[in-house]
């Protein structure tokens, strides 16, 4: 567990990112804040389209502009506001101080370039290495991510590697410059379960040796419980709950988080008389359109606890217990999840 006094490696403060669409302005990220310290892993959880990835891409300023734009807030890398940097300085940050791993390793490597070319590129960009020493460094990075026969692999093309191998290559690229922050955008979603575990183990191992802060974006609560020390739950572009991982799983405060936990399948679960497991719970309804946000709590239309007050006034983010924040008028009133 990192010391609470250590300054955050990356701090996102009240970040707002909008997209100008034909239906109006979609506020994909609305006043989002979180921070991650060195050697710490923060999990960002939420369903598809809730702004997890857009927050991360905003931090790297990789939002396509237009139609997207960062409308406000700060992104502090060790105290330096990245949103104030020029484009050339920003390029120095990307891949060097902040790296990113993407969801699908099948599409995140360029099919026409060799593995070696793709890993060497980052060394040549940021460390001023020659092609040859960049390739040496690439071979070393392949060894770090436990890919055997590195020299041969450097010559190969992405289609010659399996999905897990490719994700290891992506991790090798991301960690070449020993970044302060690693943003992992659903790094295991596209992999099968055994490979998932290997990749997560690798990330933990590399974090221990390099001290990188990891932002783990996922919708897999299992991954979060294994990897993260703190969890941020997002809904419709906003942070609705933040807690240490244990507190979140034991006593979630926000009805949405309770719903998420109830919706995750459990392996060891008691069966009913017919031998069937409890059907998976679902949160009925869908995420409201971002172009026309509701005046009150955005989760209200889907929330079993919602009442008139929820629909009118947006709930503030309040620290209900030490380190445990929730934005809900009825925080903690949700009945406990009926799990085994």
């Amino acid at each position, binding site marked *: 567990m990192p010391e609470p006094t250590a300054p955050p490696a990356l701090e996102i403060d009240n970040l707002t990112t909008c997209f100008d669409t034909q239906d109006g302005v979609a506020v994909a990220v609305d006043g989002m804040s979180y921070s991650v310290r060195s050697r710490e892993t923060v999990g960002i959880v939420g369903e598809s389209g809730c702004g997890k990835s857009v927050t991360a891409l905003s931090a*790297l300023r*990789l939002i396509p502009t*237009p139609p997207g734009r960062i409308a406000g807030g700060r992104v502090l890398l060790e105290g330096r506001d990245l949103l104030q940097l020029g484009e050339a300085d920003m*390029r*120095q*940050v*990307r*891949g*060097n101080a902040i*790296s*990113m791993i*993407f*969801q*699908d390793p099948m*599409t*995140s*490597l*360029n*099919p*026409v*370039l060799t593995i070696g070319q793709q890993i060497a*590129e*980052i060394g040549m*960009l*940021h460390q001023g290495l020659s092609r040859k020493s960049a390739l040496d460094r690439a071979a070393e990075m392949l060894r770090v991510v436990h890919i055997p026969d590195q020299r041969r692999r450097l010559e190969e093309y992405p289609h010659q590697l399996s999905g897990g191998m490719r994700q290891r290559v*992506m991790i090798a*690229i*991301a960690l070449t410059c020993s970044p302060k922050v690693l943003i992992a955008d659903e790094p295991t979603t596209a992999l099968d379960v055994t490979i998932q575990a290997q990749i997560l183990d690798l990330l933990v191992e590399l974090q221990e040796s390099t001290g990188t802060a990891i932002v783990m974006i996922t919708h897999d609560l299992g991954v979060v419980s294994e990897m993260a020390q703190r969890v941020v739950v997002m809904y419709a572009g906003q942070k609705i709950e933040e807690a240490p991982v244990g507190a979140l799983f034991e006593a979630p405060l926000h009805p949405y988080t309770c719903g998420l936990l109830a919706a995750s399948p459990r392996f060891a679960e008691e069966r009913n008389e017919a031998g069937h497991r409890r059907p998976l719970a679902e949160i009925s309804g869908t995420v409201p359109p971002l172009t026309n946000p509701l005046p009150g709590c955005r989760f209200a239309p889907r929330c079993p606890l919602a009442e008139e007050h929820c629909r009118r006034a947006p709930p503030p983010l309040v620290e209900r217990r030490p380190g445990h924040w929730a934005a809900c008028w009825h925080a903690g009133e949700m009945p406990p999840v009926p799990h085994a």
Partner: protein
Amino acid sequence: MSGAAAAPTGFAFSRRRRRFRFVSRHLTILVGGTLLTLLIALSLAAPLITPYDPVALDVIHRLRPPNAQHWFGTDNYGRDILSRTLYGGRISLFVGISAALASGLIGTTIGLFAGMFRWADAISMRITDGLMAIPSILLAVAMMTLVRPGVLIVIIAITIPEVPRVARLVRSVVLVIREQTYVQAAASIGTRLPRLLLHHILPNALTPIIVQATYVCASAVLLEAYLGFLGVGIPPEIPSWGNIISDGRTYVQLAIWIVLFPGAFLGLMVMSINMLGDGVRDLLDQRLANRF
């Protein structure tokens, strides 16, 4: 590939079978490639094949049908049709390849910019729309009437109407590729835009560009012949296929061989280039190839 299916039947069989598969799968590329190579070789080796100067007059032997001395016969000035056809092939090839290279290069550049930058897209695509509204043959004829005819001018006149087609194709391909995760991943490690374009996006767009270039080449060969036939192409003293056919058209009833042989060569060349283009597309486009 065929390994799994053929493995139990033995090595020799599987190899023969694999060869057969390659031939059957890539029949178009083999036939087109062989035919085109043959035509190119004939044109380049023209002085070795025929002793006659393609422009030398020999009035005594005018309008001779094909015979032992003049395999393809002679025209109304007694010029050897075989020589004229083979030398004409050089012009056609030169024009075709030059136009394909020029429109490929210019079109790709415009397409890359149009696909990457909105401002470039708006400007270049409107110009493209305008150019594509005019039939290419009209555009070429109009250009040719404004300047003194010459081979270079013909190439330019053929290239200009082809550029928009290439540019549009490249733009549409770039629009797809720029959204791929690997482009975003490259940007996320701080790759500069020029490198992103040339190193990460362009190589992925190369297949359709190559295929399109072969089609441009075929249509340029044809367009050159049109212009020659209309009398606004390459100067009439230079034997190009269009010019030979144009010269011979008044004698069609007397001496069909004057138009027949260059016409057949023209048809064969356009067909072989198109077949090669189709074959290359099938070979390089894995989505199509994997269907078999």
